[in-house]
């Protein structure tokens, strides 16, 4: 049943795509699914493909990890220190409201293009994590906090027994939302900055040389990675929750 739930919509949409490709009749505008698959298999046999996938994953996830860490630290600071709240909250809100394209161009002026996708992923993730962790901290049950005080919990136990379990669902939801955003914004930054051996750069060249099947193939790779990473994260979170 689970397999059918994936296979049926996939078959339906592949069918629609095939019919549309036949209708359009030009591979340059809309290649057929088989042409895209062929292109993907060809790419998959080259070292460049795996190099691009590896480099993109590494830089985008490095940036995302940095954004998660920094967002969490800033959340703790803004919740517990009115001064930090006063100074840092407006800055995070500005980051949240700034268009990703503006950030990509600005960051490109300040850092080497190799680091831009990572920095962009981190910046996109930071406000989401900040917001979720802040919400988790402020919504920690005050009755449990009072209990911790009267039961003379050490700071370590207060963190371990009260704050971390309270924040955990908010944090997990934040990371799930941030994952897709980090991946998409990171690839967009690669397309604009063209660092060597990345998925975004390959996408750009596919567009430049009008290799539409290759463009579709690389887009498929981005989508597949996105699904795979989301699935991996869900498995990880479920396992942690089970513990």
């Amino acid at each position, binding site marked *: 049943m689970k397999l059918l739930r994936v296979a049926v919509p996939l078959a339906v949409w592949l069918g629609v795509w095939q019919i549309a490709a036949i209708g359009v009749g030009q591979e340059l505008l809309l290649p057929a699914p088989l042409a895209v698959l062929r292109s993907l298999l060809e790419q998959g046999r080259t070292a460049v493909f795996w190099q691009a996938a590896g480099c993109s994953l590494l830089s985008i996830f490095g940036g995302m990890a940095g954004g998660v860490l920094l967002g969490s630290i800033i959340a703790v600071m803004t919740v517990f220190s009115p001064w930090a709240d006063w100074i840092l909250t407006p800055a995070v809100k500005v980051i949240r409201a700034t268009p990703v394209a503006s950030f990509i161009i600005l960051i490109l002026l300040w850092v080497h293009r190799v680091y831009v996708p990572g920095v962009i992923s981190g910046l996109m993730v930071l406000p989401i994590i900040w917001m979720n962790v802040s919400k988790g901290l402020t919504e920690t049950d005050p*009755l449990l906090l009072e*209990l911790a005080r*009267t039961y*003379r919990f050490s700071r370590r*136990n207060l963190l371990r027994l009260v704050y971390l*379990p309270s924040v955990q669902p908010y944090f997990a939801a934040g990371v799930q939302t941030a994952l897709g955003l980090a991946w998409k914004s990171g690839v967009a930054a690669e397309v604009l900055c063209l660092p060597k051996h990345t998925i975004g750069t390959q996408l750009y060249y596919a567009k430049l040389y009008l290799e539409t099947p290759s463009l579709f193939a690389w887009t498929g790779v981005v989508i597949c990675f996105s699904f795979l990473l989301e699935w991996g994260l869900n498995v990880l979170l479920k396992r942690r929750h089970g513990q």
Partner: protein
Amino acid sequence: MIFMQELTVVLGEKRILDRFSLALPTQGITALSGPSGCGKTTLFRVLLGLEPLQSGRVEGISPRDIAPLFQENRLFPWHTAIRQIEDVLPKERRESARQYLTLVELEEESQTYPEALSGGMARRLALARALALGGRLYLLDEPFNGVDPERSVRILTRIRSLDTPVLLISHERAVLDQCDQVIALDGPPLQVINP
């Protein structure tokens, strides 16, 4: 003895304690009984240092010496019954966690999470945790809420054997009959009916 002298607590517009004085023994089991909302829980919170006093003072006990059971269970939803007890025990005493579950007749539920416990079971678990915390005085706010009278009496007998003085709030006849002293209260403002 614990001496409460001229305690005044105002919550919002309401004067819950108005120059209230009482001396409580620090041995055996003492019960405070009175209608809901008369100020008993506020008095407990004053002893725990959780309610600011407009005037007056408490002598003979410090909040740090008290192991309280709050009116609400305040269990950690993310921990099993046995973990709730282990959480409040120092490392070297963690082995004794099970004996507190036995004391409140919950040994069968050691791996159960609070959400799967009935109201009475959750109350007993919260009580076991307060007992495990230990101190110079157990301060128990309606410890047998939702627990049947026979079981309440059995558990209270075991608590007596721990040799730590108990100050509890209860309305249940069966529980009050087991106490060494029952102080009847009324209010607000809180006042002693039978000193």
